[in-house]
């Protein structure tokens, strides 16, 4: 069990018993490396399964995932960055002025 948020090390690997025959292992560091690709759905189904199992039991990695998902959602919102008033009109000014 991870006792303190700043004390996670690469050697601390979470082991999840999937069933009697299979053990899926993935470390927090491996999860952090792939969390952006996970949001992009750009990972293998096998890795996705391992990460999902990890998120269920690791509050730290879930916090990293939730935070990143939040940020990506907010940044994509059209209200965050808008063009300045009158931009449309000025944008074509050099085309109109061409000889």
């Amino acid at each position, binding site marked *: 069990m991870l006792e303190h*948020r*700043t004390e996670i090390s690469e050697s601390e690997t979470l082991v999840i018993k999937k069933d009697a025959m299979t053990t899926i292992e993935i470390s927090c*560091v491996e999860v*952090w*490396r792939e*969390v*952006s*690709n996970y*949001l*992009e759905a*750009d990972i293998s189904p096998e890795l996705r399964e391992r990460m999902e199992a990890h998120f269920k039991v690791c*509050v*730290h990695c*879930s*916090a*990293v995932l*939730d*935070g*990143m998902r*939040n*940020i*990506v*959602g*907010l*940044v*994509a*919102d*059209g*209200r*965050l*960055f*808008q*063009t*300045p008033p009158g*931009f*449309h009109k*000025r*944008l*074509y*000014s*050099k*085309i109109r002025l*061409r000889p």
Partner: protein
Amino acid sequence: MHMPQPQLEPTEAQLIRRVCGGEPDAFEELVRPYERMVYLTAISILRNQADAEEVAQDAVLKAFSKLSTFRGECKFSTWLVEITYNEARMRLRKDRRHLYESLDDQQQDPEGDYWPRDFADWRPIPSELLEDDETRQTLQHAINSLSPSYREIVVLRDIENLSIKDAATILGLSEATVKTRLHRARLLLRDALAPGLDGCWSTGQRYQKVRPW
């Protein structure tokens, strides 16, 4: 026989033919859906509204002049953003004020592992908060504080919603490099905006409300 997949929306292809056929007014209609992309691309590199507007004007003029050379090998929007990106980079090279920034940029190591600085739990942030000036400014400031190579990829992929492939084409990078930088940039943004960065969890104090959410 292999046929190339058409990359253009029919309406865009028609508009391009009209402009090239001597109807310059159709150009505004062609560019209008991408005006915001052009502006954001320019300002993400230049970080100054006046410079970004001027570069945006130069970029659409260049796109207008070169439109007959556009062969539809990529989407029109990718082509337009690429022109804008190159114009902005040229402007930046002329502007010595940014030399310090590029030095700083080279010191980053995007290949090494990045360790999140904070593991505070995130409540979902409702998007209605973007109506609030303070929230918008906090997010804008975090994005503007990223070094250029991270800021550019966040703008292209997460703000303008271009694909990784299109972003890689525009930036002249491999898709793998774009993914690595995007990943790092998102982690940096997350850390910059994490509620726990107040340090309260390490000092045992309650969260102070320093973020607008």
